[in-house]
Each structure stands twice: as structure tokens, then as C-alpha cells.
């Protein structure tokens, strides 16, 4: 990808001609491809990511194009994957490890929490761990309790880690490139339910492909979306909705369905968090709904609720509401009973808007 290609792509996009629409997997693949091309210190590794191209195809074609020492398979050892990534970072590389499912990340937690997250601090900048850990997360694909979890709050709780969650192909590409270039360790959770199309939460309706969504228009070249900036999804005065990942689309669909004019913020990054955007919106609307798929207790919604209450209390017209997954493992057969879908969200909106 040359600089002129980037310019052309941007120009084309501005003119609205030949708009190229891709899905989230393709956007992620493109971001990796671009960074492997631009930065000889990047490497992509993980279980099945090499020759095969990943179980979700996010790394398809990358090994063939960039070679086996830049894109390769690893042993089934998340501790090892993150551990060697720390060492590679100390050497000066910029590793982009994939953890096949977020549910599998726990054996790597000590290397993430005790090592990667604190390396800059404990060595007083002698060493850093500039890795981006990509991992599909969230439910909605009948993955059962070991392929559906949303463990983002474990990571936002750790000093020194950034947590990024895209909700559209455009954001996935721009945020992933920004994450890879970031010198801090980044947990990049990809909402796998929306890899191939935005999900409204109405699981019995046909899947919408990304093609029909405006945010599937993705420029071909390099671009970045800064970490820590929320995205305004819709503007409205009735209430603020704070969401990320799959739940952005579900919340948007529910609001549209109910005819509610909501100020929906896609947080994009949980750490760093765009507190300014949150504050400005809640102070304007006076009502706040927080939506996430993860379990409720000590979820990131608790942090958001506390922040909104601390900072916007005198602007609030109603208590802050949280819509979340239940505090149970993600059940296989009862997936849609667990999922914080339109009914749960709709009920919370009614409650917030009641008075």
C-alpha cells in the first residue's frame, strides 16, 4: 500500500464514489496487513493464525504474503503466547498475539497483569511491552460458556493496560492500527457476533450483512482512530446510552424500534475512557443507560455508573440504569435468555424515561 493509494482511497471516499464496503474480519485483516507492511518490527502469532489464517479468518493470507517468521502458529499456551510477546517487546518488536477466544485468555493473565502491564513502570521505562492482544469476545454465536465471555472488566481493572473494543469495520481497522502503534499493552476485544454483520439483538431475524451499514465503508490505506475518543452513534435529547461492541447496535435498534431519541455513545475504548464525551452527553440529557453483555456485578457498567453519578449527579433526572448479562456462566441452550436483548433494554429505557 503506497502513500498515493491511501490518498486516492481517501479522495474516493470523500467523493462518495466506488465506496468499498467490507466486514469487520476483512477490516481487521487489512489493518494487520498494513502494519506488517509498514513496520518490520510487527509480528502476528497465535493458535492457528499462520497457514490456516485463524479460526475466524482474521489472519487469512498474511503468512503467505509476509512470511513464516512474521506470521506464525503457536503452541496452545496462552501463558506462553503472552510471555514470549513480553520478551519480544523487550527486544524491540511490536507483537500482535491473537488469543483464539477471550475465554482462553486466563492462562495468560499473570503475564498480562504482572508483567506486560507493569513493565514500563517497574523498570522505569527501561523496558516496555508494546503488544496488542487481539481476541474475539462476547456471545451470540452459540459458543456456550467457554466461547462467549466478555471479560473486559478484568483488564480495565489493571493499571497499565488499555482496553479497546470496536463496533464497526471502519473503527476496527482504525482502532487496531492505533493500538498496534501504541507503546502500551492493548487488549483488543473483537465482538465476534458482529464480525460479519451488525446485530440488532433480534436473533430470530435474518442477519444483516455489513454491506448495508454506513460504517462498513472503509478506506483501503492506513488510518488511525485515536484511543480514548468515543463515537457519537446517534444524537438525541431523551437519554444517553453508553455501550460498546455488539451492544451498540442492539441499543441503536431498540431505540429506533421504540422511537426513542437517544444520544448513543460507542465508547470504543474503555481505557482510556472518553469521560468528556460521557459527561457532556449525560449533562445534556439528564438520563443514562449503560449496556454491556458482560456479567453485571463488578462489570465495567459499575465503573461507568459510578463515574456518571460522581460527575453528573445534579443533572440526573432518573437513576442510572445498567443493562447487562446475568451473573451466571453463559448458557449454551439459553443463550438468548441470557443475552441483554431488546426486551431487557426496552424495559430499562421505559424505566429511565418514566418520570
Amino acid at each position, binding site marked *: 500500500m503506497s502513500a498515493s493509494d491511501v490518498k486516492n482511497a481517501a479522495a474516493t471516499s470523500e467523493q462518495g464514489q466506488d465506496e468499498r464496503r467490507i466486514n469487520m474480519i476483512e477490516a481487521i485483516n487489512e489493518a494487520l496487513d498494513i502494519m506488517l507492511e509498514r513496520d518490520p518490527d510487527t509480528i502476528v502469532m497465535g493458535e492457528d493464525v499462520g497457514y490456516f489464517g485463524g479460526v475466524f479468518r482474521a489472519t487469512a493470507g498474511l503468512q503467505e504474503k509476509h512470511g513464516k*517468521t512474521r506470521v506464525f502458529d503457536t503452541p496452545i499456551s496462552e501463558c*506462553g503466547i503472552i*510471555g514470549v510477546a513480553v*520478551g*519480544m517487546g523487550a527486544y524491540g*518488536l511490536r507483537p500482535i498475539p491473537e488469543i483464539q477466544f477471550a475465554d482462553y485468555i486466563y492462562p495468560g493473565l*499473570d503475564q498480562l497483569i*504482572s508483567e506486560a502491564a507493569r513493565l514500563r*513502570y517497574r523498570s*522505569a521505562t527501561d523496558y516496555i511491552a508494546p503488544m496488542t492482544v487481539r481476541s474475539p469476545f462476547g456471545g451470540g454465536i452459540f459458543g456456550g460458556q467457554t466461547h462467549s465471555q466478555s471479560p473486559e472488566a478484568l483488564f480495565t481493572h489493571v493499571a497499565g493496560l488499555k482496553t479497546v473494543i470496536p463496533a464497526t469495520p471502519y473503527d476496527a481497522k482504525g482502532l487496531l492500527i492505533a493500538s498496534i502503534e501504541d507503546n502500551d499493552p492493548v487488549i483488543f476485544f473483537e465482538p465476534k457476533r458482529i464480525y460479519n454483520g451488525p446485530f440488532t439483538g433480534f436473533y430470530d431475524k435474518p442477519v444483516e450483512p455489513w454491506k448495508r451499514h454506513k460504517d462498513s465503508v472503509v478506506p483501503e490505506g492506513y488510518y488511525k482512530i485515536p484511543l480514548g475518543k468515543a463515537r457519537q452513534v446517534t444524537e438525541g435529547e431523551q437519554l444517553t446510552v453508553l455501550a460498546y461492541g455488539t451492544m451498540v447496535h442492539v441499543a441503536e435498534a431498540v431505540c429506533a424500534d421504540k422511537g426513542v431519541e437517544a444520544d448513543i455513545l460507542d465508547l470504543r475504548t474503555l481505557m482510556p475512557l472518553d469521560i468528556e464525551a460521557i459527561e457532556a452527553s449525560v449533562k445534556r440529557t439528564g438520563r443514562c443507560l449503560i449496556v454491556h453483555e458482560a456479567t453485571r456485578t463488578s462489570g465495567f457498567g459499575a465503573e461507568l455508573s459510578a463515574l456518571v453519578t460522581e460527575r453528573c449527579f445534579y443533572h440526573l433526572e432518573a437513576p442510572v440504569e445498567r443493562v447487562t448479562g446475568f451473573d451466571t456462566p453463559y448458557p449454551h441452550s439459553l443463550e438468548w435468555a441470557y443475552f441483554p436483548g431488546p426486551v431487557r433494554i426496552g424495559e430499562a429505557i421505559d424505566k429511565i424515561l418514566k418520570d
Partner: protein
Amino acid sequence: MADGASGKSGDSPHTGDNRPALALHVPEPRSRPGDPVNFADVDVGAPGDMPRPDEGCAPGEMKDLAYGLVRVLGDDNKAHGPWDPKLSPDTLRTMLGHMAMVRAFDERMFRGQRQGKTSFYMKCTGEEATSVSAGMALASDDMVFPSYRQQGILIARGYPLIEMINQIYSNKGDKLKGRQLPIMYSSREHSFFSISGNLATQTPQAVGWAMASAIKGDSRIAATWVGEGSTAEGDFHSACTFATVYNAPVILNVINNQWAISSFSGFAGSERTTFAARALGYGLAGLRVDGNDALACFAAQQWAANRARANQGPTLIEYFTYRAEGHSTSDDPSGYRSAQEREEWPLGDPVMRLKNHMIAIGEWDEERQEAMDRKCAEEVKAATKEAEKNGILGHGLHHPFKTMFEDVFEELPWHLKEQAAQATREREIKWPDQHPKDGAGK
């Protein structure tokens, strides 16, 4: 649900059939406080007995080396056999000098902790050869991922004593800004990785560094040090797996000093096999070495370094040694092991053995040894005095408090700015004299 189907066992263990009752084995060390000690069952072989295979040898063809003991220095104080690294007298003197310095440093810092100058210290008495001699066999820019008892590598690499002491005192001169527990050094300049307090995490990191070096076509290799106790961590298993899978140019040094705080090596599996034998299951080259024999330590590390540098693969080396003192200043080994063990250890003391060897070959004498010990003590004393000018722990001469918030991220995010402001207010309330309202105070 009825009890029988609940999955919980009742009061009586498995009755009603004729299978024998199972028995759990809980390892027990050879002696406890006050017990007589006898190491007669420890087979240390004879110096010069083990063959020295070619550095490209397939792991499966050198299995004996994972069970025997590579030894060079004999009771006659001479060097024996194919593993003799044939070091020049000057190199031997340098090696002995570093080991003497480590011992002098440990003595002084231990005392400093007892005098209240810092919170914590860890000596490596009896294990000096495993870091000094082994470390000297590497190139100075080979990357080391140490555990917490490898001060010998830093000293051998010429890291200034005063920097070590600043770190131990967590004072305003501490390059790590007072953030780390004493002895958790870091020096990128000396290719010495930041020490973690979480055990064995450094082992896959070393493999990753070595993989990176190979990816880049570099010529530098990596080496890591880990205690025998923490080879039980999953990280060590990951390290061995990744090392063998990618044929990484790395050396995994296992310091078997017999004790992990109060748990003897049996709790890491030593009753069944050697730690070097771990290598065989992974297809790594495995060497088991007399860790109190400076020449054997050097020779083994040199063998592994040559192997790694020639893309012949990683090596796991077990150094069979003895932790002569407590785990740390917070530990009192008299509570769990016999004091006699140290006296009876069949492989002696590494400093004495090297010294006696050099005297035996006519390159050293007691007078020079005494002079050297004196000089080491003086150097350490002078460095200590110099470091104390930067403060000792708890006496207020530490890094400015705002550094607490720095380096969590590359840039300070809003929430840490807010928390730093909170910390500022707390200081103004606690010490108003130092923080006049005009803001002149710091």
C-alpha cells in the same frame, strides 16, 4: 438430590470392594532442625567423568548428561576432564574477584537491612558461581532474564555498586524510582531484564526475546535463570515448549539450590528425577552441573551458548548447588532445616574451591586473597557511603511523589491526573509547612 448422587463422598472412604486403599505421598526432606545430616546417598560422581559432546549433539544422544553431574574441579584442586574450559589465569582471577565482590556485597547489604536501612535483601551465598561464572561465558550483550538471586551477573557485567545500593535503599538516586522491592534490579544498558517478583515469568520472556533475535537475524542469544522450586510454574513449561518448538537461541538455567523458602526440592519433583531431565521430554539439550564448581558452570554455559549461537537449539542446565543462607532477610531457615546441611554439603563452597584451584596451579595465594577480600569490602563500604547520601528507605529521601503516577502508561490519562491531584492535596494537608499557599513549596 439424594446424597448418593450429589458427588460428595460420605464419611467412610470407598468401602465395599477389595481394591487396595490409596495413599497420598507428601515429600519430606532428609533432615529437619536438629537432625543429623548425611548426604551419602547423593551421587555426585567424579570430576572429569562426564563426556563433553559436540555442541550440535541431538538431545537424545546426550541423555546421561541430564542425570550425571558435570564436574571439573576435583578434591585435588585440579581441573579434570573434557569440560575444563581452560581459562587463562587472568580470567580466573577476574572470576574469583567477581565472586568475592558478590560475597562482600551480600554481607554488607544483609547487615544494612538489619540496621534498618532497607526493607529486604537476598543473599546468594554458595551460589555465586551459578551467576558469575555462568554469566561470564555469555557475551556482554547477550540478554539475561534473571530471577532474584543473580546479582553476580550484574556485578560481573560492571554495573556500578552504587546503583545497586540506590535501588536497595529505594532512595532518590534509585534508577527504578523506588518502585521495586530491593534487589529487583533492571538495566537495559547491561542487557539485564527487569526482575519480577512473580516467579518463572521471566522464562517464556527469555524465549520470546531469543525468538525475536532469531526473527531479526541478530547474533545475540538470551539466557534465563530460575529456581528449581519455580520450575513447577506453568510459565516454565511454556518456556520449554516454545523454546523447543522454535529452536530458540536460549539457555534455561535452573538453579537447584535445594530449597524454595522452606520447601525442599522434592516439592518440585526432585524425588523422582533430576531437573535437567525435564529437558528430555521437550527435546531440549539437558546438562546437569556441579553449581559450586566455577569452571563447570562456565563450561556448561559456554557449551549452551555456542550451541544456541550456531542455531543448534536451546539448552536446559541444572546447577546442583546449595542455598547456604536463608531465602531472604525475612526468612530464618533454622525453623525448617538442619543447620548441619550447609557444613555437610558434598560439593563445598564455590569461592573456596576456585581459590584453592588457583593456588594449586600457582596463580594465586592466601596473601592476595586476603588483600582482594579487603579491597572488595572497602569498595562496597565506599559505595554504600556514597549511596547513603541519596538516602535510605523511609528517611524521606525518595523520588518526588508525582513519579508514582508516571510510567503507568506512556502518557498520563485523565484519571491518573485526577488521582495525582488528590495525592498533592493529601501532602498539603499532611505537611502544610512544605506547601505554602503561594505554591513555592515542592
